[in-house]
């Protein structure tokens, strides 16, 4: 008797599901170390395509695109995290107020509308107000769609922090700003870091919206990769994809670990209290 929780075949499907999710990425990771110029004939282990990414004929294009991607992700994540933190404080600590449901819907809007619709709308909007598409328009679009991704972990964290901490601070004559910056902000920190990292990856990964609002001549890493793939799959694409893949997984893992540690400290503080 294996209990009512067990259904025959479910375990196999779950493991198969993980296999399906990871297999393509693992295969590309393996083939990125292929020494052969052919895509699929194995020519022994080699780092030549990684070297090619940095020194090959597309190196300059990829370098520029990487620079754009990283600077945009850095700025978009920073700005959207600040905006989302302010919004989370108001939404979670503000009690009931008029327009709360509407604000909630507004924050979640970027998650509900299909990306391609946002992409078209943003491009048409920039063109109508006469703002030339390029670095700035990409940055503005990224800040906007990163807000909900930064908001989710921050507000989840804030909901887990009882109001008594700030109240105690205020009772001991802390100013409102002191109660926020000395008490609430350190408690929120794991949520904020986690939100920042998620916003960073979302910005780094975005293709569809960027592709519409970037204008001619400007590239981010995903649009540069897409351009190359359209010319035909080449081994250097496997190498650069693997690098981007590793960066994303590293960031998500970091975000996950910080969030988990944060939850543990919150529980311990709760036990002590």
């Amino acid at each position, binding site marked *: 008797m294996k209990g*009512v929780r067990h*259904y025959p075949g*479910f*375990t196999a499907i*779950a493991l*198969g*599901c*993980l296999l*399906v*999710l990871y297999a*393509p*990425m693992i295969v*590309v990771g393996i*083939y990125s170390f292929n020494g052969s110029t052919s*895509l*699929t004939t194995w020519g022994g282990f080699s780092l030549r395509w990684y070297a090619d990414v940095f020194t090959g004929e597309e190196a300059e294009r990829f370098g520029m695109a990487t620079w754009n991607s990283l600077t945009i992700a850095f700025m978009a994540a920073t700005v959207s995290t600040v*905006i989302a933190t*302010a*919004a989370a404080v108001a*939404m979670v600590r*503000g*009690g009931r*107020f008029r327009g709360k449901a509407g*604000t909630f819907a*507004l924050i979640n*809007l970027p998650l*509900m*509308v*299909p*990306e*391609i*619709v*946002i992409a*078209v*709308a*943003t491009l*048409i*909007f920039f063109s*109508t107000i006469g703002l030339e598409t390029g670095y700035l328009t990409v940055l503005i679009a990224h*800040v*906007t769609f990163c*807000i909900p991704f930064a908001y989710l972990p921050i507000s989840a964290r804030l909901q887990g922090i*009882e109001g008594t901490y700030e*109240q105690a601070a205020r009772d001991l004559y802390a100013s409102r700003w002191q109660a926020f910056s000395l008490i609430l902000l350190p408690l929120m920190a794991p949520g904020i870091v986690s939100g920042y990292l998620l916003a960073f*990856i979302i910005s*780094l*990964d975005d293709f*569809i919206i960027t*592709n*519409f609002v970037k204008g001619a001549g400007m590239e981010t890493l*995903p649009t540069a990769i*897409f351009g190359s793939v359209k010319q035909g*799959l080449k081994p250097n694409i496997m190498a650069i*994809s693997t690098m*981007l*893949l590793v960066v*994303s997984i590293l*960031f*998500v*893992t970091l975000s996950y670990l910080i969030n988990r540690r944060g939850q543990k400290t919150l529980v311990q503080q709760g036990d002590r209290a």
Partner: protein
Amino acid sequence: MAARRPGERSLLVPLLLPTWAMIGVFMVLPVGVMALYSFLTREFRGGVDWTFSLSAYDQFFFDRGLFGDEAPRLQWAYISIFWRSIWQAVIATVLCLLVGFPTAWFIATRPARSRGVWLFLITVPYWVNLLIRTVSLRFLLRDTGPLNQGLMSLGLVDAPLPVVNTNLAVQLGLFYSYLPFMVLPIYAAVERYNFALSEAAADLYASRWTTLREIVLPLVKPGIVAGCLLVFVPSLGAFLAPDLLGGAKTFMIGSLIDEQIKGSQGNWPFGAAVAVILMTLVLIALVAYARSVTRERSA
């Protein structure tokens, strides 16, 4: 909830203003402008003429013949692209459900300590660049790709299975892209499920599958519906999977919009109209979902 001190409400507006401004000005307003655009006249050099016209919608739905004198007939070219997109999204959703439910169930029945790790493993692919994941899938499925080579060297097939550039490849691509969206809400629902109900059913001689059908499924239905919505909506407007895995025969809404807005033969009012129609479909799905949730709660 902490007691409110006087004066704290005055902070609400400055705290929320940046969010309202950014999303309001750079997302809500643009969607409005796009809707307006869809009612404008196309100018020949890709721009628009600011005169009201229904020609974009007319072009979408009707065929007026060469000189426009004939009575309008429904024109199927664009409607069939929508129909195909809906169909592809439905198949992807069903595939995700068939795999996602057992997976979510499996995770929810693990010991509490290891559940976090399983969930993490399911979410990681979501955060990996969708473009790279789709390219990887194309590489894996190619005629000369590792999958076909493996099958051929094992002697299971004589010639490569032609998967890339078919509807099946697009369906697999959508399934692969959005699978985590199905698992997570179902997991959340199964985790709240009280397994004592299953034990009670077993005591009353119900088989496992009867219990699943009669007791578990009705109780976790909200999670299933949410998961289906989260897979269906992005699949409907997907661009990368049909573009990179499909061919000319698998043209979907996303590619149509892209072609009209970015292509050299583009027509912005028409592209905007297609986007508006897509958004309307999504809204219908969302409203239907919201109504099913409220009905569930009031029942």
